[in-house]
């Protein structure tokens, strides 16, 4: 009946009692609390043609037909299960038939793990869908956000702005999307919210305190840039692909974040290789 909370020695995550969405993140050791709502949304793809100003969304082009994403509609709380344990605590969320998420806190780890599962994206309504996860916080970010750039240094991005020319922004959403190869973050003077990805994705911050990443997409028209096919992967059963991946969320001070997200990034992108063998030996005999 109340809010749901999971925590380890570093982080506390609180989920809203009515919606089941993530509500606050607290760094317990540094006493930093961030009000942050996390949920999934989808942009409806443009279905025009590239002969005039109604460019379609497709394999090459991300072009939503509006500036606001549509909400993944949920009924009541999305939380279906909470697991408490000494090593790992989990909150299971079901947003609808094709969007679910498990949020985990492992003992001793400074980051929360968000494992999302999206798909098969419905197609019977004929609407192209580009699915995002979005974190809306109370950070005062002054239109600034940060993404890594093709494996090189992290670059500051600014909403509707380019550093070296005067931009006439005609695409308020897509024109502010940037490649996120491993991480994206927003910050103010005292707090930094960093999200590391397990694969390259597109990401942006379209409002102050907001951070979004595109996790899956499915469209029904070719964008006329050469591929000659719509980006409509049907999978072996014909109903579409299911994508599953992870985001790693950190809330730290801006001063400490650089070292911490780089250390975590090394662990994620040079992850250990695990192999198995059936065994009938004791430890001594194995040794």
């Amino acid at each position: 009946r109340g809010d749901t909370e999971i925590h380890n020695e570093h982080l506390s995550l609180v989920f809203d009692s009515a919606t089941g969405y993530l509500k606050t993140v607290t760094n317990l050791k540094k006493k930093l609390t961030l009000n942050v709502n996390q949920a999934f949304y989808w942009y409806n793809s443009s279905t025009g043609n590239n002969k005039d100003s109604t460019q379609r969304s497709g394999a090459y082009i991300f072009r939503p037909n509006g500036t606001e994403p549509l909400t993944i509609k949920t009924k009541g709380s999305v939380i279906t299960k909470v697991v408490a344990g000494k090593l790992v605590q989990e909150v299971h969320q079901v947003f609808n038939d094709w969007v679910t998420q498990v949020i985990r806190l492992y003992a001793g780890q400074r980051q929360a793990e968000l494992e999302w599962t999206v798909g098969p994206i419905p197609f019977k309504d004929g609407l192209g869908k580009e699915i995002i996860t979005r974190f809306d916080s109370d950070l005062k970010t002054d239109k600034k956000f940060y993404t890594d750039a093709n494996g090189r240094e992290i670059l500051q991005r600014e909403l509707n702005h380019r550093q070296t020319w005067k931009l006439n922004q005609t695409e308020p959403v897509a024109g502010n999307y940037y490649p996120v190869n491993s991480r994206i973050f927003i910050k103010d003077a005292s707090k930094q919210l960093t999200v590391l990805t397990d694969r390259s994705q597109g990401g942006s911050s379209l409002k102050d305190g907001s951070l979004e990443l595109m996790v899956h997409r499915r469209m029904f028209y070719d964008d006329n840039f050469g591929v000659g096919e719509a980006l409509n992967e049907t999978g072996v059963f014909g109903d579409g692909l299911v994508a599953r991946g992870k985001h790693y969320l950190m809330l730290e001070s801006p001063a400490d974040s650089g070292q911490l997200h780089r250390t975590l990034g090394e662990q994620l992108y040079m992850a250990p290789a695990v192999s198995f063998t059936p065994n009938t030996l004791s430890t001594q005999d194995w040794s």
Partner: protein
Amino acid sequence: SSQRFREAMAVAQHHDAVSGTEKQHVANDYAMRLHAGAVECQAVVGRALTSKMKKGSVDPPAAQFCTYLNISICPTTEDNDNFAVTVYNPLARQLTGHYLRLPVNGQAYTVSSPKGTSVETQMLKVSPRTVKVRGPRGNATSELVFPVTVPALGFNTYLVSQASKRNTRMESLFMPQAETKLNVVSMMIPQSPMM
């Protein structure tokens, strides 16, 4: 065949593979090449681990890999009551507090560290499978979670036994010695072109 992954990666440098703008049948071909390369790499890693573990005339069993752990599928851990887990750390510093999550079918398991000490574990239920799967379909009822520590550029082996079927002789031999430091499975792998 040891070049297969390099060749697949080289092919995938094409801009269509990087950005995902290839036709579907080309995407399928890229995936096939990368998979074949990954399988070859697993064989190379398996041979390297075997050579490092070999003591005298005894050949250690061949390493098996599980590429479907993200959907709770691993035949070796699901079908065996006792199995060894070898973790190789490619980082140039010790890895601590890393958690393994293995699909299993038993109710409770004991995990021995390379030093012979008991490792804390947690069991979690696997959610009901709602998505159609082609090919191997996991039957695991639970996931076994435990932390591992691995030396820089080296490996550690953890032994996992289903608690209810554990050999009583093994239990009597090892439980009193839970803190005994054997420290022989953990070893450094010197720089090797193969690795």
